[in-house]
């Protein structure tokens, strides 16, 4: 028993003298609880919607006001014509369009019913469902309010249409996200470990005392992984298309090019990690802990970013995965072209250059 206690005591010494252990034991759990707590939200919050009011009468204005004043929604804009609907979804910010038919108020009074068409962006089926439920309940409330003492009075009917994902398949939401995460993790983790390995084994020393220039070493490390990641990406897309029946509405070439861009972004992030990490273990830990969880939580792949508190929303902007998920969903599910995703693409390019820049700056041409 004494031996056992002696051993346990020693283990305590090791732990509190190793700052890294302490960080993992306490720092990480706290950070993660906070992250999870705030990020996970199944309710929607201030989702952006657009109205297409083809009637513009007192009734529609009343209903619109009711919807707009709900805390769940925020008005992005008022559309002028039906032709604008597709475009506004492709832009990506608006999650639902509410379309009031012509002569809405008149129809309601004279014929006893008028129809609202609700088009929801179902690339995120959960959000689409929530939106639909809230809208339906608002309409129901309105119906009740105009029918206080009557039965069989005028009714507003709602026609729902789930855009891009009529069957509300959640796989449509997951596959792009998973593809992003895998590409990012594999690329970033693999490069960071590979470079850290050279440092750990001491072979880096010999490479340094050789004519090889720093960028040659880095590039040499990265090239094999580019090729392998591309193969990975192809496999994932093929699996998604053939097994999960995901559509690829947009251009495959664009999808491919953007994927390569994202692979480069991830690889350059991996290199940046390797300039910090001294051992393979550290590299792996930073990649997994530092990348995986925030990426899963804050990239918008499972939990909508819009529902998170503002600080988290801001942080999510620095996560490359977030931008790539937008790109990939856009191309695969909405069939968008470069015109709609140039902003996200530019951001990824910028991040890549930034990571490479810092890595080059930090790459030590000497041992200390």
């Amino acid at each position: 028993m004494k031996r056992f206690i002696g051993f346990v005591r020693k283990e305590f010494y090791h732990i509190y003298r190793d700052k890294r252990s302490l960080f993992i034991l306490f720092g990480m759990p706290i950070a993660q609880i906070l992250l999870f707590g705030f990020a996970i939200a199944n309710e929607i919050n201030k989702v952006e919607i657009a109205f297409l009011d083809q009637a513009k009468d007192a009734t529609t204005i009343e209903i619109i006001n009711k919807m707009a004043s709900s805390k769940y929604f925020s008005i992005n804009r008022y559309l002028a014509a039906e032709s604008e609907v597709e475009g506004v979804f492709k832009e990506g910010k608006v999650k639902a369009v509410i379309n009031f038919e012509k002569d809405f108020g008149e129809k309601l009074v004279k014929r006893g019913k008028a129809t609202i068409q609700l088009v929801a962006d179902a690339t995120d089926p959960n959000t689409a469902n929530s939106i639909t439920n809230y809208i339906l309940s608002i309409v129901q409330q309105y119906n009740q309010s105009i029918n206080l003492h009557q039965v069989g009075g005028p009714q507003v009917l709602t026609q729902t249409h789930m855009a891009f994902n009529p069957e509300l398949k959640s796989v449509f939401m997951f596959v792009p996200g998973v593809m992003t995460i895998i590409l990012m993790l594999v690329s970033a983790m693999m490069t960071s470990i590979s470079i850290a390995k050279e440092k750990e084994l001491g072979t880096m020393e010999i490479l340094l005392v050789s004519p090889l220039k720093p960028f040659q070493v880095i590039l040499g490390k990265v090239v094999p992984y580019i090729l392998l990641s591309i193969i990975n990406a192809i496999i994932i897309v093929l699996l998604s298309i053939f097994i999960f029946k995901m559509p690829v509405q947009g251009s495959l070439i664009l999808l491919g090019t953007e994927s390569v861009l994202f692979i480069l972004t991830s690889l350059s992030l991996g290199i940046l990690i390797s300039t910090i990490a001294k051992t393979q273990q550290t590299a792996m830990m930073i990649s997994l802990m530092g990348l995986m969880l925030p990426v899963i939580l804050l990239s918008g792949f499972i939990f909508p970013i819009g529902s998170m508190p503002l600080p988290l929303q801001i942080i999510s902007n620095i996560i490359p995965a977030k931008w790539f998920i937008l790109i990939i969903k856009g191309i695969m599910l909405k069939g968008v072209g470069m015109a709609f995703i140039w902003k996200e693409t530019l951001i990824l390019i910028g991040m890549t250059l930034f990571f490479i820049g810092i890595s080059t700056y930090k790459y030590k041409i000497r041992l200390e």
Partner: protein
Amino acid sequence: MSISLHQISKTYKGISAVQDISFEVKPGELFGIIGPDGAGKTTLFRILTTLLLADTGTAVVAGMDVVEDYIEIRKSVGYMPGRFSLYQDLTVEENLQFFATIFGTTLERNYELIKEIYEQIEPFKTRRAGKLSGGMKQKLALCCALIHKPKVLFLDEPTTGVDPVSRKEFWDMLKRLQAKGITILVSTPYMDEAALCDRVALMQNGHIMEIDSPKKIVEKYPKAVYEIGAGERHKLIQVLREFPYLYSVYPFGEYVHYTDSRSDLDIPELEEYLKANGLTGIYIGLTEPTIEDVFMEMAKE
């Protein structure tokens, strides 16, 4: 001058690794840095191979400054660092090819230089480097360091932990390399290897205690050294420690090295003393001091 250092100092995490080191190595010399772990040998090597920046002082290798011209130096020196640092999962052949390529040469071009070393490992050329024995790994590492025909070769403790046979073979190879005109700077904790160098620097705790040819260093040793043998070595040492005229006594293999505080030793007197203390089979003879004797004497100060 092939290598020259002037007042090089380096402090590492608060500990002074090397202090005020100055010396020169002539072209084609086989120069040894002799000292135990912690002496500062590896730090010195890393400064000379441009892997570390010294805090103070200057150093020149093959006519190039280690700070300003580090890129050129890295192209023209061969370096074998302390641990075995080749790629364990590549074969012998692949390792050699890799190093040849990054130095912009081929195995064939400088084959003459590494031929006799390579021939010993050639039978294993398809074996992964990680599966070679210690002695073989060294030979491979040496080949990789020589593949681009460097002007200067830096070998940091190449024989540490390796058995005496491989050590001897290794030094034979170094001598033959030296004959081909390469300047070689070697570090080792084994004092007996010092005798094989043209000149050595004795290093301890970041300081250089003495630089000269092994022969001259030994000649400078101020005291006469006696070999003493007796039936029980441990008892012999304890008894000698009690001897009033003792200056130093250290076990040295089979015998004990003894120096007297007087300028002359009266051998019969000592013999009597030992016998009186119960020792038998006594042998006392004058002997040549070794580098190790000198090292220990200097380290005491």
